[in-house]
């Protein structure tokens, strides 16, 4: 059995705000573990507690209770620290430096010798697509470029575990694609990647495992496959000339039907769609579109919340 690279146990963090010391429960007891080699997604809507959790993992904030361990050690441990790279949610760095100078500085902290530093810096800047901007100070960088510089500084120590807080935000579609490629390449290098997002679609394809939190509480922890099975997948079909008896059958089986003139929009559960499409074609209907509907996180949370209320009753 391998031991987890990152383990969070019953983590709680409470902030006290303002003069009144009003209590804000940012994280209310979550536990999960990340195994070596995994690409691990950390999902939750805005304000769920993702950044707070990640900052306790990076030892920037201290838990109110519970435990965090990196490679089996406390998060402040130097050996553990040498094996982790981190991209903060807000990628701001010393803006009077050029990206190569920033990497030079951070590289020294990892104890990398100067020849190796030079080699790595050139390679990394090319890898994150900043090869053309080597001679600009970070002050002149756009948000997306800063995000890339942030990724480079997270990777400078050649870490075994890469922790990225919302790495895809602020990037254009090409940038998002490139970043996803970087992440899957890290996997082929045998590294572990832990990254947060509030967009379900970012995570589905990339991640082996996910944790979903909401309002500081754990909602799901397991493999992405299992998650997608529990998630209700629906298919939307738009067709013309659909016979009435077929529509009646769809409604009786729990599907939804909407008419727009002679065209009809049908929404059915994923597992029924195959059969329905066949029936439609057999009945001579004109199919305009068959689209799988991916459930957004918000819908998912609404449904999950509904379920837990049901369970409570």
């Amino acid at each position, binding site marked *: 059995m391998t031991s987890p690279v990152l383990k969070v146990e019953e983590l709680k963090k409470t902030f006290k705000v303002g003069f009144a010391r009003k209590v804000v429960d940012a994280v209310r007891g979550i536990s999960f573990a990340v195994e070596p080699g995994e690409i691990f997604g950390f999902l939750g809507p805005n304000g769920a507690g993702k950044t707070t959790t990640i900052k306790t993992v990076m030892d920037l*904030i201290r838990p109110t209770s519970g435990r965090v361990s990196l490679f089996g050690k406390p998060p402040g441990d130097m050996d553990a620290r040498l094996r982790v790279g981190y991209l903060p949610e807000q990628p*701001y760095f010393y803006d009077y430096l050029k990206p190569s100078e920033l990497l030079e500085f951070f590289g020294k902290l990892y104890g990398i010798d100067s020849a190796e530093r030079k080699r790595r810096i050139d390679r990394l800047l090319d890898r994150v697509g900043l090869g053309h901007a080597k001679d600009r100070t970070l002050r002149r960088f756009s948000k997306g470029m800063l995000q890339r510089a942030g990724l480079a500084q997270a990777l400078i120590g050649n870490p075994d575990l890469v922790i990225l807080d919302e790495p895809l935000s602020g990037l254009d579609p090409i940038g998002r694609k490139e970043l996803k490629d970087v992440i899957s390449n890290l996997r082929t290098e045998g590294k572990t990647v832990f990254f947060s997002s509030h967009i379900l679609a970012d995570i589905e394809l990339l991640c082996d495992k996910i944790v979903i939190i909401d309002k500081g509480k754990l909602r799901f922890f397991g493999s992405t496959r299992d998650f997608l099975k529990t998630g209700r997948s629906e298919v939307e079909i738009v067709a013309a000339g659909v016979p009435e008896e077929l529509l009646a059958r769809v409604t009786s089986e729990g599907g939804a039907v909407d008419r727009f003139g002679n065209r009809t929009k049908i929404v059915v559960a994923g597992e029924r769609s195959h059969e329905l499409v066949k029936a439609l074609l057999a009945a001579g209907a004109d199919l305009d579109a068959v689209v799988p509907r991916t459930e957004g996180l918000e819908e998912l949370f609404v449904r999950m919340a509904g379920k837990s209320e049901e369970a409570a009753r």
Partner: protein
Amino acid sequence: MNSLIRILAVASNTFRESARQRAFIGLLLGALILVFSSLLVSELVVYDQQRRVVQDFGLFFISFAGVVIAVIVGVLLVYKELERKTIYSLLSKPLFRYEFLLGKYIGMLLVLLIGTVVLSGAWFLVLFVRDVPVRLVFLKAVLLIFGELSIVSAVAILFSSFSTPVLSGIFTFGIFVVGRQVYFIDELLTASKGLFVTAPQIRPLGEAVTRIFPDLSLFDVAREILLEVEVSWLYVAQSLAYALCYVVILIALATLVFQRRDFV
């Protein structure tokens, strides 16, 4: 060994920040002000007072400008890292928090050192123009000023590790002002009349102040220079050692505060 490399990396980045943000242009401006104002002031007095005025005024200016720089740079040192959100990526690196503080402090000392050197250069220039022979004691005086600045900036770091820049600035300046009076308060405490005799109930306060606050008058040798009393190297070394003790304690306290902090 690795720890030293990391501390120096932080120090050199701190120094580079000042250099890149053109802090030294301000310094040159300060030096120009020193030269012109002391030349001007010395024009206003009779010839045989000139020598005294350029000596006194220059020394006062270096010390005063140094304290202003030390307080401002010191209280902003950590604050800027927080404000610009650069601290998250830095503290998540293999770097202990005490190494971070120490590196920042050493970087600042370097800035202060350059500041003192530039201002002293300007002062020596004025002395030369006014035909005052540059004596070794002037160099000793400047060294002592640097010792004082190292304490003041460490005080600034300590306050800024838990307070806002404005409050830290006020507190630090307050400590500087009181610190310059510690010698005087001490004399009052041993005197057979005066404040502590007429109001004995505040005696413990005076005793506490002299015990806790650094005696900054140690670093002020303007009177010795004026009276042409010798300032020995031993005295300079002892005073600098005194400064070092305070610095170690202050930075250790700042580290204690800093260790427990959340960087949200």
